[in-house]
């Protein structure tokens, strides 16, 4: 398989993730609105619109690389968090999982991609996406900060490792490939793993701790 074809395959995976993110942010917007956090709801609606735009940009890159830009078949949106999680806590779980963990990792990985990409359309796409991803991560951190100001959110600590595992499985798979694809927006796997480890240690863990969430804490969730 040629380098553009291998890169296009990874961008198709990225396309699927962007489409799923539309659903997650749309769900979050509805939950935030229902609980009266209208500013967070507005930011989540914007994030959903951004992700829709990102999906279109991914399709354009796929086409430019000679791949099939048709979107994958829509899959049911997975519910985030364990089934036993009280409904009242599920929105916060989702905001942390999507914003604080996944989008924060995405920001770091996109910045690393941006540093090595040279294909003009890939560069322009990465610039557009990373700008929005910063807002999406901030949404998660803002939601956590607000919830922590209202109640003890330490129960999230028991779920952080699962959030990380899910994010890494998606995010690293979406950006990592063989070493020859850096110019086309794909990171070598070793570099992607290093970025994830650094971001986890320097951004996510201290960010969570800032709001009383300690990764690996075993306290049970309490309905807020």
């Amino acid at each position, binding site marked *: 398989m040629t380098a553009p074809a291998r890169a296009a395959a990874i961008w198709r995976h990225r396309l699927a993730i962007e489409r799923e993110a539309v659903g997650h942010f749309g769900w979050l917007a509805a939950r935030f609105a229902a609980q009266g956090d209208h500013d967070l709801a507005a930011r989540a609606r914007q994030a959903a619109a951004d992700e829709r735009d990102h999906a279109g940009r991914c399709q354009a890159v796929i086409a430019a690389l000679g791949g099939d830009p048709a979107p994958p078949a829509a899959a049911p949106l997975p519910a985030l968090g364990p089934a036993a999680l009280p409904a009242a806590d599920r929105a916060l779980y989702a905001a942390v999982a999507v914003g604080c963990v996944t989008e924060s990792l995405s*920001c*770091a990985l996109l*910045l690393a991609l941006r540093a090595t990409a040279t294909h003009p359309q890939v560069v322009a796409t990465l610039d557009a996406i990373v700008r929005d991803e910063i807002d999406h991560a*901030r949404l998660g951190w*803002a939601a956590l900060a607000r919830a922590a*100001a209202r109640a003890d959110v330490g129960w999230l600590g028991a779920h952080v490792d699962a959030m990380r595992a899910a994010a890494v499985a998606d995010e690293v798979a979406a950006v990592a490939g063989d070493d020859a694809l850096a110019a086309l927006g794909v990171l070598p796997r070793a570099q992607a793993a290093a970025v994830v480890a650094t971001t986890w240690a320097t951004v996510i863990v201290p960010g969570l701790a800032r709001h009383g969430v300690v990764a690996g804490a075993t306290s049970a969730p309490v309905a807020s």
Partner: protein
Amino acid sequence: MKLERLFHVLVVMSGAGAAGCTSDDDPAARQPPPPDAPPGGDGDATASPAEEADAGAVGSPCFCDSQACCDRGQTPAVVAPGFTCCWSTTCP
């Protein structure tokens, strides 16, 4: 890649709006939280001196393709006073 800025930009500035610009002259961006505000707040839009230094040497961090960050009266556009480009962006 300036990963060391990411904590400040994502976590500390989580209360900021769009990832565009805050001006040194924007009073809303510089006001400290009210004395009775809970710690952590809704994202600390204000930053400690150490965190300000981490954000950039001069001015507020900014994606410099946004309108507010660039003086487009000149050709090529230059970064407006009080702002600093970050994340490898420049004024086009």
